[in-house]
């Protein structure tokens, strides 16, 4: 891989650092941060391990409700709330992963979908006294944080929240990069390429997949926690299967075979939604159609195709 391609994640962080000034308004930039993180976390499983999950909304949602519920009912501090959200996602993944990974391929995908929906209905119906049911959990407080003796609220301004979230995002990108380029990351890819062979080489692939599942849920849950803080609401639709679908679409749109592709995909997805929504409420129609086109003709995704074109161009030189 060329020097630039290998360093593209640094480029991403740089772009994200100035994103609010490139885009027309902060809200969309913040959404891109949150969902980009979600998609990248998701891609640990899809792009690197080769596991198609249709239930990742569960982990995003567990992060959202974990943070939301603890901030509302337990009145914890902000960092604690986020930590609880992430922990909820990882704990959920431990159980869900254990069960879903008993199967492979399409059965695995359907199992994750079933569990995702299970969590949705638990929040909608069974625990609606706590979760607020259809309306979600409103009025999530955002306690001020103290840094170096100063106390301030991260939601003081849209920009302040953006950079609060940016720090989490940038750290996550760096950590994910480390993980996916480590020996562990190499094992993940061997599983994606040929699980049986990986097993016969001596890897306990079930355990490895489970750990990948946990990592994936960690970052998805973090994105969910940030979502709850940003909107001051634990929204029910974060658990709905359309949110799982969003993760899938963003990842594939951007390029599941690359590291930063999912983030690019999230950005494109949200920008398309934003732009098209001005003209029509049927933005999902366009995104759905575009997604179909990508599956048919551009399986490498936007960033993947760009990287490939760049690579071929360099070969010619």
């Amino acid at each position: 891989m060329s020097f630039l391609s290998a360093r593209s994640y640094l480029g991403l962080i740089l772009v994200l650092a100035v994103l609010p000034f490139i885009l027309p308004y902060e809200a969309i930039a913040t959404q891109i941060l949150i969902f980009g993180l979600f998609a990248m976390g998701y891609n640990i499983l899809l792009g690197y391990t080769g596991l198609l999950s249709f239930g990742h909304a569960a982990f995003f949602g567990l992060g959202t409700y974990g943070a939301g519920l603890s901030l509302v009912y337990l009145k914890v501090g902000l960092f604690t709330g986020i930590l609880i959200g992430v922990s909820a996602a990882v704990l959920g993944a431990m159980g869900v992963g254990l069960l879903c990974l008993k199967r492979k391929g399409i059965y695995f995908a359907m199992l994750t979908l079933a569990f995702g929906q299970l969590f949705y209905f638990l929040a909608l119906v069974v625990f609606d006294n706590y979760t607020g049911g259809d309306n979600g959990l409103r009025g999530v407080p955002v306690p001020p944080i103290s840094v170096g003796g100063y106390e301030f609220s991260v939601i003081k301004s849209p920009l302040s929240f953006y950079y609060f979230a940016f720090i989490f995002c940038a750290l996550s990108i760096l950590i994910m990069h480390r993980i996916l380029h480590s020996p562990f990351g190499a094992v993940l890819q061997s599983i994606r390429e040929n699980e049986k062979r990986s097993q016969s080489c001596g890897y306990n692939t079930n355990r490895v997949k489970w750990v990948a599942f946990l990592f994936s849920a960690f970052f998805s849950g973090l994105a969910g926690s940030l979502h709850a803080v940003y909107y001051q609401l634990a929204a029910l639709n974060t658990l709905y299967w359309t949110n799982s679908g969003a993760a899938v679409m963003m990842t594939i749109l951007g390029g599941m075979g690359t590291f930063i592709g999912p983030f690019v995909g999230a950005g494109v997805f949200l920008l398309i939604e934003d732009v098209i929504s001005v003209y029509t409420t049927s933005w999902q129609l366009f995104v759905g159609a575009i997604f179909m086109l990508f599956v048919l003709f551009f399986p490498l995704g936007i960033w993947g195709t760009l990287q490939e074109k760049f690579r071929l161009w360099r070969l010619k030189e």
Partner: protein
Amino acid sequence: MIGGISYASLITQLFMGLQIGLVYVLLAVGLSLIFGLMTVVNFAHGSFFMFGAYMGLFMMGLTGNFWASLVFVPLATGLLGLVVEKFTVRPLYGRDLNDPLLLTFGLQFVMVESVRLIWGTTGFPFDTPSALTGPVNLGFALFPLYRIFVIVITVLIIFLLWVFLEKTSLGLIIRGGTRDSLMVRVLGIDLSKIWFLVFGIGTGLAGIAGVLAAPMRGVHPDMGIDMLIQAFVVVVVGGMGSLKGAVIAGILIGVVVSFTTLFYPMMGEVIIFISMAVVLLVRPSGLFGEEGLLE
């Protein structure tokens, strides 16, 4: 009386379950056929269900004749299915097995939003055809005539399908292809034509389920989505690729949902997902599916 509910109520609920279940069966059979033959998970199947309902509405608006709708709808829906298969699913043949799943996932959004665009977001009621309104006295309770009609006609459709699959040579090829597509190809049969046909039949079935369901639940852009997931559960429980499984599981799940709604209204949906998870874990090939069809 059991738990404060009369026997009459229970049996009525059983009939309800049967009727709901049979509609599931129509959906599940289509899904199962498509999966069994093509290993394609048609995520857009619920959208064909919805499309069928809207086509029915359209036809009713045009002719006022429900029976005409019943004929028109499966044809229109099946035709759409054929177009979809030829231009979007077929090109994916030979690629990763997850690709058709992803494609139909995108298709689902396109279909639902298109319907929203054309017919609006709020949906419409669908009048029960006058010939089929009113209750029927079953002796122990009154039961809507229309629902009995649905039971009768779905049984008829399933029977016709069974005859087609078991007794015609084309049906034999389809069944053979479901079990061993390589063999069928080796025998010189053009598999792509069979795929074409099966996708059309499967979606046509979804369409007719939609128009049958319309008088009971109205017509709404989102009506396909819940049905899709429930149809999946039926297919998984019955066994992917097994028609007998789809029939039995469909009725079973319909009855379970019906009774759960009676006793624990909250748990209706949850029960469905728990059963799906349990089946996938304990016996992933479902009650009647092939072992190791796809792990």
